[in-house]
């Protein structure tokens, strides 16, 4: 009797322990990622939000100022609006060009049969080169006297302008340099194109659907999720534009390439006003978030998801 009771108690304890093990095990397995996320993503995020409510010099006294950083940024700081405007201008040109050119390149790579592997690598290569090296290359290309671009222009008899010295041209130069890295976007769209079953086009061809209509009513809708994805990531990378401008033009000439990210950067590392810079980051975050949500809401009208419909979905398909 006693023995049995003791045995039962041990069993219960064992079951309890195994229950804990069962529930904890999955979290233990993903704990490296969770730790990384907590310390390197969520932590800094919360930290920077806190910071943005403080007057937070790198050295010296921190004081809580509430929404003051935000207020003075929005109402008393013309540089905020100027840099934001430059960034919006940049995004408005960069994003559509990035997507359209990537799409056209992907389309071309998808359709050529000759040396497609070579071209794929060639177009993707710039995306692999680190930002600083890339900018160095571009500063040679754009150089007024010895630059490759002006040299080529001189071959056809054009006296090339001072690309980086002209306030109107500098932003164009940066857009072109940024588009140099469209290999990633192109690769995503190429993968999307390759995933569209060939039979869809054949079925359309047999039923007399002309090529432009196949592009419009089959390719684009089937590519919808990919296009949306690249749309949003392009917006995000446009707003984060820093490296190229910082190294190529340093925001000049005449502040014509003074991007929003650079404005934040300067506040943090030039004026050492961490609270103000953090507030700028959060403003940027909110703008990008709002834009992304807007794009996603708008996309519901034109993006079709393969997994959109869940009911009656048990059937396997070819």
């Amino acid at each position, binding site marked *: 009797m006693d023995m049995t009771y003791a045995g039962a108690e041990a069993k219960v304890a064992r079951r309890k322990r195994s229950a804990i093990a069962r529930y904890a095990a999955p979290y233990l397995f993903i704990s490296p990622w969770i730790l990384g996320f907590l310390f390197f993503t969520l932590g800094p995020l919360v930290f920077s939000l806190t910071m943005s409510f403080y007057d937070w010099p790198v050295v010296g006294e921190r004081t809580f100022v509430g929404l003051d950083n935000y207020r003075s940024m929005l109402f008393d700081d013309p540089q905020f609006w100027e840099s934001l405007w430059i960034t919006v201008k940049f995004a408005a040109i960069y994003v559509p060009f990035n997507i359209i050119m990537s799409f056209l390149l992907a389309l071309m790579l998808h359709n050529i049969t000759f040396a497609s592997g070579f071209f794929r690598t060639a177009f993707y290569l710039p995306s692999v080169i680190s930002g600083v090296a890339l900018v160095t290359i571009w500063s040679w290309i754009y150089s007024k006297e010895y630059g490759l671009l002006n040299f080529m222009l001189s071959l056809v008899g054009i006296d090339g302008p001072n690309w980086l010295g002209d306030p109107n041209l500098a932003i164009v130069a940066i857009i072109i340099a940024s588009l140099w890295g469209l290999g990633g976007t192109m690769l995503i769209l190429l993968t999307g194109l390759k995933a569209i*079953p060939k*039979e*869809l086009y*054949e*079925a*359309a*061809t*047999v*039923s*007399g*659907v*002309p090529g432009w*209509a196949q592009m419009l*009513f*089959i390719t684009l*809708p*089937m590519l*919808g999720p990919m296009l949306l994805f690249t749309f949003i990531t392009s917006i995000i990378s446009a707003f984060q534009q820093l490296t190229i401008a910082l190294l190529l033009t340093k925001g000049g000439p005449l502040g014509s390439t003074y991007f929003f990210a650079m404005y934040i950067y300067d506040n943090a590392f030039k004026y050492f006003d961490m609270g103000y810079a953090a507030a700028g980051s959060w403003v940027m975050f909110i703008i990008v978030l709002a834009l992304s949500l807007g794009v996603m809401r708008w996309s519901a009208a034109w993006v*079709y998801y*393969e997994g*959109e*419909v869940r*009911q*009656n*979905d048990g*059937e*396997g*398909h*070819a």
Partner: protein
Amino acid sequence: MAAIRIENLRKGFGSLEVLKGINLDIADGEFVCFLGPSGCGKSTLLRSIAGLEELDSGSIRLGDRDITDLRSAKRDIAMVFQNYALYPHMNVRKNLSFGLALNGMKRDEIDRRVNNAADILRISELLNRKPRQLSGGQRQRVAIGRAIVREPKLFLLDEPLSNLDAGLRVTMRVELAALHERLGVTMIYVTHDQVEAMTLSDRVVVLDRGKVSQFGTPLELFYQPANLFVAGFIGSPRMNFVTANVVRQDRSELTLSGGGLARDLTLETLSSAVIAKDKPVTIGIRPDKLELVSPEEAHLIGDVRLVERLGTESHVHIGLENGADMTAVVRGTHPVSNRERIHLRIPAEHCHLFDADGKAIARALDTETQMLINQEKSKRVA
């Protein structure tokens, strides 16, 4: 009006020759199957007719038009693909009407055709669903519907049932036959399932490595295979083959001996052409025609390797003394057992004969079978 004539069609991919001179005459309203093992070129031939492949040489006529160089869209054909190829982002109605709308057809004509096709295929309730929300059989119907709305002169179907489970396949097979009856339009159907080919078609094209091996009615293929390939391909279990030599020829009467035979076999042929004595011939005999007999009467002697009892019949797998394999089908659950010695007779009237090149040497059929074949042929012409 919509008969098809294919002449000398050749098609290769790079150095790989796939279709090696195809000649076919398909009558208006006929249901024809392309049958053959995987990779023999069935799909390529079908796609050539559809205009999805560029020919290397040869010509295709549909009705009174030469369509060899015509764009696919202008050929007056419709095609159903093996994996349906439905547009996943369009609902069923859009899937059916998409091609029509882009060819400038009037709204009410499109609606009429779509509703008509939906009626025929019983998919009217599904018109607003996306392909994702359909079962395999329903998707197949939509794919066929997309062909019907075109009101084509010719239907091309590439293994349309191969993705369905066995039960649904039988149902859809019956429906396809009914559809053909109802529309009366020429249909070409690709399959590697001989049961499908035999039950559905008026005539079957048996393809072997890019060539037409035989083109005939299902019973013709079964009872009068033109060569070893067709003989071995049509019928299940497969026809048995035994090699032998001609030891005596008296005009059309042959006496065969040696090879796998334990006893001489004498049989009549329809031809009195001399057959070389030094070249082996092949005797073909269907498994259900082999007879179990006493040792004195046996043409074939072997050991039972395996008995598969299916209830109404049993398949007996036999290893002959010369190493060849045979299958005999016996009625019921015959009491043969493994490793037992077995004696088989080849009834001369039921065997096929092939020369050294694998070509059939014509033999007379019994009157009943001949009548059946004639009936089948006349039905087709009618």
